[in-house]
C-alpha cells in the first residue's frame, strides 16, 4: 500500500492483540443491524442455542470454532456486510483498540517493517480497521458468497493456527520478506504456529498458557492494554 520495498514484515493477530473485541462482537453487530425484527430475533436465538457449542469448540480447537461460527453468517448479503463494515469499525472496533496498539505498529513501521494483519476474522470486517491502523496488507478469512449471499462457508484454507503460519510463510516468499527477520504478535496460544514460524515472535496481552510458552522460549512479552 505504501509502495516501499520492505525486507521484513510485522504480522499482527488482531482480536485480543490490537483490539479487545473478537469475531462474536462483529457478528453481533451484523445481527443487530439485520433490518427486521424477526431476522434479529431468529439469529439471536440461534446464536444463544449455539453458544455452549461455540464455547466448547473454542476451548479445544480454534479451527472447528471458526468453521462452526461462520456458518452463522449463512444468508447474510454481501452488500449488507460491506455496508455495515464501516459502521462496525467506527462503533465497535475503533473504540476497542488497545492504548498501546498504535505505538507498537508505529515502532514496527520505524523499524522498517511491512505491517500485515493476520487474523481469523473476516476480511470485510477487517479492511476498515487495517486502513485505520495503517496496515499495509491483510491476511484474513473470506466468506464464500453465492449470488451475493453468504453460504456460511469460509474459502479455504481457513486462516487460523497452523494455516496462519503457512500463510505468513507464503506471504514472505511472495513479497520478498525475510521470515527469520520478521516479527509476529499475538495474544493467544492458538497462534503458537504463527509466532513460531517467524524469527522475532512476541506475545501480547498473553494469557497464562501463552505467557508460560513465551517464558520458556524467551519471547518478549508486551501488554498493550
Amino acid at each position: 500500500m505504501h509502495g516501499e520495498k520492505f525486507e521484513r514484515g510485522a504480522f499482527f493477530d488482531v482480536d485480543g492483540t490490537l483490539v479487545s473485541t473478537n469475531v462474536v462482537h462483529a457478528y453481533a453487530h451484523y445481527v443487530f443491524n439485520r433490518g427486521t425484527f424477526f431476522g434479529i430475533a431468529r439469529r439471536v436465538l440461534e446464536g444463544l442455542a449455539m453458544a455452549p457449542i461455540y464455547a466448547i469448540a473454542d476451548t479445544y480447537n480454534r479451527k472447528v470454532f471458526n468453521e462452526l461460527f461462520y456458518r452463522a453468517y449463512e444468508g447474510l448479503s454481501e452488500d449488507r456486510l460491506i455496508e455495515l463494515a464501516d459502521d462496525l469499525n467506527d462503533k465497535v472496533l475503533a473504540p476497542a483498540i488497545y492504548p498501546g496498539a498504535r505505538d507498537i505498529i508505529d515502532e514496527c513501521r520505524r523499524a522498517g517493517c511491512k505491517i500485515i494483519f493476520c487474523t481469523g476474522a473476516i476480511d470485510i470486517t477487517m479492511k476498515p480497521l487495517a486502513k485505520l491502523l495503517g496496515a499495509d496488507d491483510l491476511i484474513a478469512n473470506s466468506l464464500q458468497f453465492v449470488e451475493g449471499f453468504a453460504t456460511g462457508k469460509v474459502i479455504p484454507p481457513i486462516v487460523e493456527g497452523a494455516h496462519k503460519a503457512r500463510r505468513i510463510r507464503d506471504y514472505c516468499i511472495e513479497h520478498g520478506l525475510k521470515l527469520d527477520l520478521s516479527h509476529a504478535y499475538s495474544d493467544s496460544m492458538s497462534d503458537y504456529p504463527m509466532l513460531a514460524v517467524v524469527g522475532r515472535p512476541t506475545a501480547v496481552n498473553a494469557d497464562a498458557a501463552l505467557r508460560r510458552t513465551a517464558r520458556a522460549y524467551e519471547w518478549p512479552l508486551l501488554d498493550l492494554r
Partner: protein
Amino acid sequence: MRPLDHLRKSYDEDSQVVLQDKDSPPRMLFSGEQILLEEVPVGTRIIFPNPPVEPLANVRAAIRFALNHPEESEPLHAKLTPGMKVLIAIDDISLPLPPMRTPDVRQLILEIVLQLCADSGVDDVHLMVANALHRRMTDAEMERMVGSKIFAAYHPDHYTNHDAEEPGGIVELGVTEVGERVRISKRATDADLVIYLNVNFVPMDGGHKSVGTGLTDYLGLRAHHTPHAIRASKSYMEPKHSALHSSVDRIGKIIDEHVDVFHIETALNNRMFDGPMGFLGKREEDFGEMDRAALGAMRFMLDRAPRELRRKIFHSVPAAYGVIAVAAGKTEPTHAKILEACQRQCFVKVKGQADILIAGIPFISPYNVNSILNPLLVQVMANGYFFNMNRGTPLIKEGGTLIVTHPCSDEFDPVQHPSYIEFFHRLLPETRDALVLHKKYEEEFARNPSYVHLYRKGNAYHGAHPFYMWYWGENGRQHMGQVIAVGTDNTHVPELLGWERADTLAEAIDMARGRQGRTANISLMHHPPMVMTDVTE
C-alpha cells in the same frame, strides 16, 4: 574454618592493605544475596576500602555556596531570567548503589534550585531523568528521588524520563572532528538553560558524560559504547586513560557550543551500610561481639530464606551515604573538583599487581536496582567494573586469574531485562566475540520494535543495552587469562561466559595456582563498600 570468636585485630590500622596471617580471621565475601565466610591463604593481600570520608556538616549550605560561587560561571541566580525555559536533568537510579537514604541529595539540590527558579520568575521548568537507554524509572522511584512535594508539583507532565526513541525527540547538533554524532534531547536544545544534577559515586560518572550520554539516543551512544572504545581504554574509572571519556569530552565540547549547561555535581562517601548491617563495612579484625552475632544471624537467615526474599531484603535497605563535596558551574572545572573528592574516597594505593585476584560479587549493579543480578550483569561486575576499578594499571596482571564468588543463576527479569534474555541464550552460544556481536546483531536488537516498545512504555532496558554490558567487560576479557566462578548453581552460565567454575574457594585457588604457579601472589578486594586501586610498581 575457624570459629568466629577467634577473630581479633592483628594489623596496621592506618593501612588499607593487610596481609593475611596465620591468626587472621576468615574473610566475608558476597556471593549474590549471600555472605560467605572464607579462609584465604596466608600471604593473601586483603585490600580494604578507605574509611568513609567525613560528610559535609551542612549539605544545604554547601549546595547554596556552590550555586553562588560556581566554577568559571556566573552564579545560578544570575543566569535565571523571568520567562526563560529551564530543563533540569537528573542522574537516574543507577546511582548511587544501593539507593541512598532519603532525602536523596538530588532532592536537596532540587529544593534549592526550584526555589531559586521561582524567585527569579522562571516558571517553565521541566525535570527529566537522564536515563539514556537505561530503563525508565517507576513513579515510586521518581517520587523517592525528589521527594513527595516536588513529585506532586511536577509529575507527570513536567517530571519525566528521557525517551531516546521518541519520534522527533532528539536533535543532532553536529559531528566531532573524528566523526562522532552529537545528538541530545530536543528538550535540552529547546531550553534556554540546562541544569544538570549529578551524583558522583565512581570516577567514571559526571562531567561531559552526564549530558552527552544521559540525554542522547542509540545513534549518539554508538560513538563510544563500542567494543573498540572499551578495548582502547586502560580503565574507564580513570578518565585520562579512557577512550570512552575522550569521546564524551569531544561530544561535550560541541554540546557546550549549542546549549548553556550549568552543572551541579556532588560526591558521596562510601558509607554503604550502617546500623544493624554496619558490620558489613568493617574489617573482620574489628568485629565486636555484636558484629559477630549480627553476621551469624544474618548468614543463618540468608542460608534459609528463598532467593526472592533475600533479594528483597537487600534491595530494601537504603545506604547511609554522606555528601562529601558539592561543586557547580561550567562542566569541566566543576567535574575536576568533584573527581578529586571522589578519587580521594575510592582509591587505595597498592604496590604491584596480583597474579590471582579474588572478589565477591554482591547483589547489585548499576543496572539491577530492585531487580535480579542476571548472568550478564554478573559478567559486567567481574570483567567490567571490578577489573576497571583502577587508575590505569589493573590490579590483576596480564594473563592473571580472577576468582569471583556468585551462584550465576540462570535467572533474568523479563520486565527490566527482556533483551538480555535473548542476548544471553541466543547470541552467546554462537559467539563471545564482542566485535562480531557488535557488527552482526547490535542494530537488530536496538531496532527490535518489541524491545523499543518495552523501553518506551514499560520499565525495560533498551534492546542495545545487553551489548553494552558485554562490551563493558571487553578490556577485562582481553587482559585476563582466566576467570573462575565459585559456588555456581549450574555449569552452563559460566561456560557461556567463557569462565571456569569451582565448588569452593579453596578449589578455585588450587585451579588458579595450577595456571599461575604455586608462588603466585593473591589479592582480595574486600567489597563492599567499593574499593578501587591505584597500583604502583
